């Protein structure tokens, strides 16, 4: 595989985490414009852990996920009663506040004669853990997909469990779910925290792939894209958001057929697709039909 193909595949994998995070919230009936904020929290936390605290990447990923979950739970707890556009705008405001906090975040220490650490709008350079361990791009890609496989597996288990059914019930009708004996508040918080952890996992991997992060990496474009990926791919299964990412990055960016016009083609296709299938390609009906065919 050439380097470019590996690069595109790695990016597809990394974006899949945020898309899956947006998907989890969509299934629970919440529309978030702010998952990029927790992606950023994950990226900054993991980078600080490996670069400045000398922690190993696997440990750093766990810390990053914990921070992402905590941040998301905090936002979730203050926005519990909000739905629809109110919730979307509140999450957007939270993510933008996080991005501005990254811009104000200066904490550099000298390591090996070089000042390292977050430097406001200048970003955070030299996140070299992966590079220094001699991990080749292909190996890192496999690491990303290994983690993604774990996430997909967890989702598959979830979809078959009672918890998964509760989350879908919450998404359909929160009042009804409450009457059915589901603890709506706890479930909402749990889903928000899990989605935050998932986005943070993607962010931690992204920081170490890119070796460099800056606040603008985590602006609204990332959040709205991941939401759109989940909606295009479909809300019936976790493969939906992954399909959404693969369609955009793999088919259009990767093949470069429509170079220069990619967004015009992609945008038009998505709008038409949604007119035809409002809950995405792999929507609940399709998934149900696919399952029952066996």
């Amino acid at each position: 595989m050439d380097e470019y193909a590996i690069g595109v595949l790695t990016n597809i994998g990394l974006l899949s985490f945020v898309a899956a995070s947006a998907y989890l919230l969509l299934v629970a009936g919440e529309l978030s414009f702010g998952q990029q904020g927790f992606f950023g929290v994950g990226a900054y936390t993991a980078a600080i852990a490996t670069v400045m605290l000398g922690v190993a990447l696997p440990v750093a990923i766990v810390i990053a996920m914990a921070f992402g979950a905590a941040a998301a739970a905090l936002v979730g707890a203050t926005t519990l009663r909000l739905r629809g556009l109110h919730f979307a705008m509140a999450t957007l405001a939270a993510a933008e506040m996080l991005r501005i906090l990254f811009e104000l975040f200066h904490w550099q220490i000298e390591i090996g004669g070089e000042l390292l650490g977050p430097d406001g709008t200048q970003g955070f350079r030299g996140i070299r853990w992966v590079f220094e361990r001699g991990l080749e791009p292909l190996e890192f890609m496999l690491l990303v997909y290994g983690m993604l496989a774990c996430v997909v597996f967890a989702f598959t288990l979830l979809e078959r469990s009672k918890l998964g059914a509760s989350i879908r019930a919450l998404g359909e009708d929160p009042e009804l779910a409450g009457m059915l004996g589901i603890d709506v508040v706890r479930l909402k918080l749990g889903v928000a925290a899990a989605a935050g952890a998932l986005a943070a996992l993607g962010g931690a991997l992204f920081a170490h792939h890119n070796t460099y992060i800056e606040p603008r990496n985590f602006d609204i474009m990332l959040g709205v894209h991941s939401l759109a990926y989940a909606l295009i791919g479909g809300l019936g299964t976790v493969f939906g958001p992954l399909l959404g990412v693969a369609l955009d990055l793999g088919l259009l960016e990767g093949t470069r057929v429509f170079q220069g016009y990619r967004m015009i083609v992609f945008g038009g296709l998505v709008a038409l697709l949604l007119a035809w299938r409002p809950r995405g390609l792999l929507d609940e009906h399709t998934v149900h039909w696919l399952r029952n065919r066996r």
Partner: protein
Amino acid sequence: MRSLAALLIIFFSGTAIAQKLDGKLDCKYAGTDFIYDCTITLQRGGQPLSGAQVTVGADMPSMPMAHNIKPIKAAPTGTPGEYRARLDLEMTGEWAVKLRIAGPVREQLVLHYVFTESGTAPRK
């Protein structure tokens, strides 16, 4: 257990930091389609670094995972420490240029430049 210990050693061990590598970029606008002819200058400890294999890529700051250009190999110009590459960017503005360097040293550099229709300037 032993393999776990070996893994732990790999994960927790620090590596010796090599002498810092400096990279500079100077690009001329080729006139059409956001193609830039770039000269890359590499120095290590003040000495030009020759004989390296340099791969150049670029990302935009917003949505770096979606807007990137196909990495290309830079060719040595003959002057020590100088390499030449032709970048085909999608638009003017700020780009994070990524250099992957192999050969005498393995290194990875990210340089920030603003690309305009007259050339490049480092980001403030």
